[in-house]
């Protein structure tokens, strides 16, 4: 349940009726979250097999955030995020085969194998990356919001970043301009409690990240990011407000990543018990599964059918990613400049 906590200017109120949720919607969120979970598990396996190289940041545990936020977007809306981006791409409707093939560095990847895990884009799906410099995507997302306003196209820019990026100076430069010009941007802070190996308490003088916009009059709200329904509800209000020209909004998603920062992270900065407790008590997929079964929306067999379908999609993506050829050596020198 989202909790309205902005002391400065709570423009986004959590009160009011929850939107009615249909059976199809429940099942879609379940399927989308499961797709991300299974995709990331498979990516982790393939990394271990040496099929994926470089940096690879898994989204396992945080699935409810993107799936809940995506539920409220329209075709003209845009998404930009950091390097922990596989989940965002799948939630935006990008083809798992193209994402996985980019991870394996093959020509069937979204960036033809030239971007890798952190750098994928889809103009078609209005997904603007995939950025590797902590905090740098925040001004970029603010600029995309500027383009929505400039064109008057009614679009909203969803700009995701983490609790690590939140201390970057350019984030506040962006907040200032977004508030000054009332840009249609939602800053989604995915607070998974660790910026690489440094806990939020050790990095942030104040850990109420939803309040980080208060100096600029930007309303903020903290949301249970492990609960897809809470995210959806908060997202619905935020998107509606931004679309109505009320300016920027901050949503702080309280979430958790089960895996290390990247594949090479032994995660010694937190206890196994802490991780286990989150998994057993707060897992977003299990929580929704229970809601679906308790509410008699679909039977256990119905969910198993979804599990099988997701497994099939992931297997196919993994096969595609391994069979797609490496980029043609001639690709080394393409896409540097646009030929005028």
């Amino acid at each position, binding site marked *: 349940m989202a909790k309205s906590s902005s002391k400065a200017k709570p423009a986004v109120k959590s009160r009011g009726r929850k939107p009615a949720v249909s059976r199809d919607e429940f099942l879609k969120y379940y399927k989308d979250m499961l797709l991300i979970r299974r995709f990331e598990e498979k990516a982790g396996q393939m990394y271990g097999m040496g099929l994926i190289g470089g940096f690879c940041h898994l989204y396992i545990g945080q699935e409810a955030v993107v799936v809940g936020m995506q539920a409220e977007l329209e075709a003209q809306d845009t998404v930009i995020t950091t390097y922990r981006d596989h989940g965002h791409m799948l939630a935006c409707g990008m083809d798992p085969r193209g994402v996985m093939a980019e991870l394996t560095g093959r020509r069937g990847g979204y960036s033809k194998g030239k*971007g890798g895990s952190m750098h994928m884009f889809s103009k078609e799906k209005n997904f603007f990356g995939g950025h590797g410099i902590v905090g740098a995507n925040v001004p970029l997302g603010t600029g995309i919001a500027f383009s929505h306003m*400039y064109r008057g196209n009614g679009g909203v820019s969803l700009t995701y970043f983490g609790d690590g990026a939140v201390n970057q100076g350019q984030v506040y*430069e962006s907040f200032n301009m977004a508030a000054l010009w009332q840009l249609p941007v939602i800053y989604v802070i995915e607070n998974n409690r660790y910026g690489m190996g440094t806990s939020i308490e050790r990095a942030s003088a104040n850990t109420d990240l939803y309040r980080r916009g208060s100096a600029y009059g930007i309303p903020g709200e903290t949301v249970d990011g492990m609960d897809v329904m809470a995210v959806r509800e908060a997202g619905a209000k935020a998107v509606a407000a931004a679309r109505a020209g009320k300016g920027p909004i901050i949503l702080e998603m309280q979430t958790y990543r089960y895996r290390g920062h990247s594949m090479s992270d032994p995660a010694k900065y937190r206890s196994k018990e802490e991780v286990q407790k989150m998994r057993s008590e707060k897992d977003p997929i299990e929580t929704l599964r229970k809601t679906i079964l308790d509410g008699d929306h679909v039977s256990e067999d119905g969910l198993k059918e979804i599990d099988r379908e997701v497994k099939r999609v992931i297997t196919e993506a993994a096969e595609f990613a391994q069979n797609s050829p490496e980029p043609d050596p001639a690709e080394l020198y393409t896409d540097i400049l646009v030929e005028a």
Partner: protein
Amino acid sequence: MSIQVLMPALSPTMTEGNLAKWLKSEGDDVVAGDVLAEIETDKATMEVEAADEGVLGQILVPEGTENVAVNTPIAVLLEEGEDAAVLKNGADNAPAAVAPSPEPMTASKSVAPAVAAVPAEADYTGPTTRLSVREALRDAMAEEMRRDDDVFLMGEEVAQYQGAYKVSQGLLDEFGERRVIDTPITEHGFTGLGVGAAFAGLKPIIEFMTFNFAMQAIDQIINSAAKTHYMSGGQITSQIVFRGPNGAASRVGAQHSQCYASWYAHCPGLKVVAPYSAADAKGLLKAAIRDPNPVVFLENELLYGQSFDVPTEEDYVVPLGKAKVVRKGDDVTIVAFSLMVERAVEAADALAGEGISAEVIDLRTIRPLDVETIVTSVKKTNRLVSVEEGWPFAGIGSEMAAIMMEQAFDWLDAPVARVNGADVPMPYAANLERLALPQTKDIVDAAKAVSYRS
């Protein structure tokens, strides 16, 4: 003892101004802080305040006088008890007798002949008009904004203030605040915002008050603007121009005097332009705005006020990536860009007097570099002198030397000579700053050295 009121310098690069208006009349009492007159420069209208008290005894420069040199006495202030009669003996106060202004603080006074030596684009034979570089840049932006609603200008003081250096004068009036946007002083943020807008298909012109401040934003210029097209497999483009003055102005110290040509030219995914003449400033800026890639457009504050013949044709566009031979010669090739073209042409004049025929090439675009024009010239002259304001290490001159080794080695009769800024942070003192920047004589000496003449 009467006090001379001198024409003040109102900015680091001001050398002259117009005396727009006297606000005090002869015989008026004046106390320190009173506004005496209004001075108009190419950048702004400023007030001249009295520094002493007394009576305005005589106005030496009437209002409406144009091009009054800095330090010219413009009035005489009489101290208590003095009589206007003393002025009768003060013939040395008359403007006619004013000593030439001391050490020029800006580009040397030999600008005029140098400008005359540089013809407009060779293949252009249409009508031209006299425009300053400042006006040419403004016209280029205005014309491109008229033809494409996706083009907008954003930066510090570009709108209401009319540009810190008045380059954007009049644009707010014509295009309104939707398209001419004053930003907070947050280079990193507004540069990233501009790049994001470009990802989404707009065509921003991001003005930096100087490129020195763009260092705050260089991550967004390189990591976001220059690399994303490649990282996205060609899906995302950044049609964006980063422009503003680059390099040294005049005694503004180390943090405001750096040349960034080699920094940006190092990076694939960027184009880098550094024009000299107003015609090129206009034609190249129009090309840069139309180019579907990120373009770093390096201007020079000392050139803003200089005037050149500029084609009047609306669609006069100078293609990026083409150097210009601004002076033909046979004995030695001198390559330069931006303000250094002026020095190079001056050097060529001096060399001509000593029987050395120098060919001067204005690089205009640093990346992609017009290697063919340079190599063709060196195959004729067999000698190359590279001139730049920037530091020598890994500079544009270093690149010239490498290109000569790779593509013209057998034609060289002497090692490539580099004339560059001294390898030091820019000093403030006038004499030290002069020593730190390439001077005409340095170029002459280098040309003679590679010609084995002394």
